[in-house]
């Protein structure tokens, strides 16, 4: 096999076919010679007999020279790459010399006439000179480039980067993209020269180190599995470059197998590439596209629960987006929910038995071509506990199965109960109505009963305008919070004297001590400073429309330095703290430095503010208070739906410390899990999609669990073009292949020399030969007589 390959073989074939054009023209439309009447023809006749044959030969010689010109042009356009082995370079030099001598010889033969032998000699010598010059250029250029000029049998350090993102599971022609990539990579592996060091990188990251053992690399390659949590391709390439550049071998290569899915052009971390940009220029990179252009797939995006945590009896919306890639079609979408059974999951005879899924709703969704639709299911009447379910496409076979099923877990809890203690009667009534309206169970007790009341059944307390309290009350409240309860304290005019109010016992609970009353010259307005706080996240979307100035604050408590684990959540517009939050144990204390729902008819006290007066346009303060209680009653984690690769933390109120759980995973295995000291359960990295169930080994304890889903981008089938990827990666030297033969060719010619420059010089030489010969052959000029008048055509 010739050590030369052509980037554009079709151009070479087209050029070969084009060679027939001059031949056809020569045969069909031979140029007519100039005709002239001339009496002395008799003097030409004798020589004519002997030169007629020579003339015909010269016609064909000129034709051959022109064919050579065309062939060379086609050769040039087809961009031949010559293997940089000794045989390849020798072949190139041989071809160049032969073509030069052929062109020179043809031209000399054409000029054969008056100076015959001399012309032939000069022409051939000149062509040999040109050939030597071109050969020198080839060798000189090669020796300067160094890295490109290596032998194809030289060992290389190569990183095989295989994109194993979930979209690589796309099935086409009974083969997933990953299987195709593995097949192509195995083919590639067999072609590495002996002594090469090869490493594998998949979507998890590097799989081992560079290894000279092809066998072990092959086993690693075969063992590659889909990564449910896939890193962006750019990151993988970076790992590959880092791996390769660590090798001592001078020849470095990187092969990227990907179907160029959405993760391929992820640009979320632009700095990522900076550290290896220079290194990337020193190695040869091959991008191997294992994707297909026309894809047909219906995809479910991860499920959204609205709200994520519901109280018993409350309705929840299960919302899912369905996306169609391909022609319009109807699909059936089913919502199924597990039937809770107290004894499940359980292991019987080594087999895990889990509750069965019961279909709850079935919808037919009409999807436009490449369109999408949002479907909302409704669930209600669910009892307390953790419920697992799926939304799935029924009776559907498409390219990618991984996005036809989405898991969700729903936490249903009992109604939250609030213990309301208000020293301001008006505020007590307002708050009572508000909490009831917000769905909280609310019990109002007198201040005197505070010390004796059983608080274990309450989720939170609400203290409005408390006076200095006995230390026993503060200690009881502190314990309540440490167990996971929440307290909202709205300071008012009764918190006097401040030094008595902020006693040692009080400061164990409150975020800060009240120091003095701040009388504002101008009315103050609330200003939320920390929208990342869970209780105030609702403000962000409405920041510009909330009329905080309509709820002026005239007086508030000026507070001292913050206690440990405390933070300022909101301030007044002059900068003083308005709402403070302190984490105590498993619970939180939120303190307002001005009262809520203060009676406006109290003549003994100047009104501190106009917050929560029960008026119709009071929605901002109403929402504020409700969200604060949502926060305080929900101080434990309530997230039960995660994406693959995320770290999971589950916590429950009153969870026993260091409890032992059984964790049942989606692949029907189980393991023991010990809770943290705070009673929460942590799993640092969970990848496999499905339902994970936690079963407490304590008697009479409820079951917990969570769901893991593939992220949206991991199943996104939208493709990028190779050029986009390369531009994004800013790769200097790269090639692109789609199929195994193409890959084989590119691999065989890795580090090959593109014979563009010498062929261009050669083309110029042949063009000059043709020009001189043709002009000489068809010249029309008077030698000494000048005028060409009288010549008849």
């Amino acid at each position, binding site marked *: 096999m010739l050590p030369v390959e052509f980037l554009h073989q079709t151009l070479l074939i087209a050029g070969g076919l084009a060679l027939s054009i001059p031949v056809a023209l020569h045969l069909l439309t031979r140029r007519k010679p100039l005709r*002239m009447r001339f009496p002395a023809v008799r003097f030409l006749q*004798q*020589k004519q007999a002997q030169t007629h044959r020579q003339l015909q030969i010269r016609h064909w010689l000129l034709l051959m020279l022109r064919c050579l010109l065309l062939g060379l042009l086609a050769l040039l356009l087809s961009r031949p790459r010559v293997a940089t082995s000794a045989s390849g370079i020798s072949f190139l030099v041989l071809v160049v010399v032969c073509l030069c001598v052929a062109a020179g010889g043809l031209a000399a033969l054409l000029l054969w006439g008056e100076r015959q032998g001399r012309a032939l000699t000069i022409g051939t010598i000149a062509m040999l000179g040109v050939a030597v010059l071109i050969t020198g250029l080839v060798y000189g250029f090669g020796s300067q480039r160094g890295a490109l000029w290596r032998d194809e049998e030289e060992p290389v350090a190569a990183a095989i980067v295989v994109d194993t993102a979930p979209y690589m599971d796309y099935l086409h022609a009974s083969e997933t993209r990953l299987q195709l990539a593995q097949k192509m990579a195995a083919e590639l592996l067999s072609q590495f020269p002996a002594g090469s060091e090869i490493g594998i990188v998949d979507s998890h990251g590097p799989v081992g180190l560079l290894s000279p053992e092809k066998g072990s690399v092959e086993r690693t390659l075969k063992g590659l599995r889909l990564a449910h949590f896939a890193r962006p391709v750019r990151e993988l390439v970076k790992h590959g470059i880092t791996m390769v550049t660590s090798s001592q071998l001078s020849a470095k290569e990187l092969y990227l197998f990907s179907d160029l899915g959405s993760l391929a052009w992820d640009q979320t971390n632009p700095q990522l590439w900076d550290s290896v940009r220079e290194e990337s220029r020193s190695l040869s990179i091959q991008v191997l596209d294992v994707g297909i252009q026309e894809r047909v797939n219906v995809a479910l995006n991860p499920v959204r629960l609205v709200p994520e945590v519901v109280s018993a009896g409350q309705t929840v919306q299960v919302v899912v987006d369905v996306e169609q890639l391909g022609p319009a079609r109807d699909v059936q979408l089913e919502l199924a929910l597990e039937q809770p059974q107290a004894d499940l999951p359980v292991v019987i005879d080594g087999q895990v038995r889990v509750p069965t899924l019961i279909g709850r709703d079935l919808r037919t969704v009409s999807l436009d071509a490449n369109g999408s639709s949002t479907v909302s299911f409704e669930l209600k009447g669910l009892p307390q506990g953790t419920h697992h379910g799926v939304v799935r496409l029924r009776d559907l076979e498409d390219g990618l199965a991984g996005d036809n099923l989405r898991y969700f877990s729903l936490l249903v809890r009992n109604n939250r109960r609030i213990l309301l203690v208000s020293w301001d009667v008006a505020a007590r009534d307002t708050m009572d109505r508000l909490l009831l309206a917000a769905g909280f169970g609310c019990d109002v007790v007198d201040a005197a009963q505070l010390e004796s009341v059983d608080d274990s059944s309450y989720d939170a307390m609400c203290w409005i305008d408390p006076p200095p309290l006995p230390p026993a009350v503060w200690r009881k409240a502190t314990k309540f919070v440490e167990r996971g309860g929440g307290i909202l304290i709205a300071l008012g005019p009764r918190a006097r004297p401040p030094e008595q109010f902020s006693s040692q016992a009080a400061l164990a609970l409150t975020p800060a001590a009240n120091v003095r009353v701040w009388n504002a010259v101008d009315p103050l307005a609330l200003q939320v400073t920390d929208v990342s706080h869970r209780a105030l996240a609702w403000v962000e979307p409405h920041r510009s429309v909330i009329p905080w100035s309509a709820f002026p604050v005239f007086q508030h408590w000026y507070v001292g330095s913050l206690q440990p684990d405390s933070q300022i959540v909101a301030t007044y517009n002059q900068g003083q703290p308005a709402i403070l939050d302190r984490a105590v144990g498993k619970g939180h204390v939120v303190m307002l430095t001005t009262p809520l729902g203060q009676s406006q008819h109290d003549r003994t006290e100047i009104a501190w503010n106009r917050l929560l007066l029960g008026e119709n346009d009071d929605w901002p303060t109403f929402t504020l208070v409700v969200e604060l209680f949502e926060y305080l009653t929900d101080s434990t984690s309530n997230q039960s739906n995660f994406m693959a690769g995320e770290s999971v933390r589950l916590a429950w109120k009153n969870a026993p410390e260091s409890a032992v759980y059984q964790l049942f995973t989606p692949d029907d295995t189980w393991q023991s899990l010990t809770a943290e000291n705070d009673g929460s359960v942590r799993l640092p990295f969970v990848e496999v999609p499905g339902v994970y169930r936690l079963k407490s080994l304590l008697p009479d304890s409820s079951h917990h669990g969570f769901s893991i889903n593939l992220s949206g981008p991991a199943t996104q089938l939208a493709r990028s073009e190779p050029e986009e990827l390369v531009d994004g990666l800013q790769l200097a030297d790269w090639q692109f292949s789609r199929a195994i033969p193409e890959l084989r060719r590119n691999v065989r010619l890795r580090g090959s020399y593109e014979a563009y420059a010498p062929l261009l010089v050669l083309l110029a030489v042949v063009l000059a030969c043709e020009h001189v010969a043709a002009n000489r052959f068809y010249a029309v000029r008077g030698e000494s007589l000048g005028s060409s008048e009288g010549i008849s055509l």
Partner: protein
Amino acid sequence: MSVERYLKPEVVRQIARLDLRAKFLVKGFLHGLHASPFHGFSVEFSEHRRYAPGDDPHDIDWTVFAKTEKYYVKKFEAETNMTGYIAVDKSESMAYTYRQDFSKFQYAISLAAALTYLMIGQQDPVGLVTFDDRIRQSLPPRSKRTHLGHVLTLLARLQPAGRTDVAYCINQLAAMLKHHSLVIFMTDLLADPQPILSALRRLRHGGHDVILFHILDEAEVYFPFDGQMEFEDSETGERLEVDSSGYRTSYRDQVSAFRDDYQKECLQVGVDYVPLDTSMAFDKALLEYLHSRQSRF
């Protein structure tokens, strides 16, 4: 074409100059033409004229100088009984001209006119014959000055046409001649040489004096063409496609050999062969010929 064209003032002046050189002409040209063995040829003194630079000092009449102390040269009037025939080839090939300026035929006519003027000026009867493949027109020899007009008028009316058969025409002319005559041929000789040479031998054998002006176009001599050309024979219509550049050397060799052969053969049979081409001024060519002839006698 006007008659005057062939007797332009500069030509007449040249010829007149020849006329003034009577001695030279008689002893050289005409003497040579007639050749010494022939009789009835005399030269008579005509008049004196003032010596002019360029005249031969031998012609100065020292007797007159002794009387007048002025230089006079003697002017002679030729007196002849030699009949001349000028035979002009009017075949198609004679019409060829590369420069589109002065064809071989026109060159021949000019030459014929000059010679006619000269010979009539010497009282020699001059006849005119035109031919292509046979003799077409002829004027009987006359020595009157009015005859010059007739000759020139006939020449001016001629159009070259037809194919050539020089040998046949020579034979035909030989049959027409009753006395020993001076026959001057003006032709391009583009025909087989052997029959022509045979005919010339026959003519010479008849006792006639022969001058052969071989007129070719300059392109026919130098072959200035380049590149691929197709040449068509003017008379036969035969076509030949050649690479002119490659043929030039060979062509020139052929032409040169052709002329040399004629030169050699003519010398053997006593024919004056004068090779000319249209790039040579015909009067100069004539003078050169006369000079060369003078050197031989």
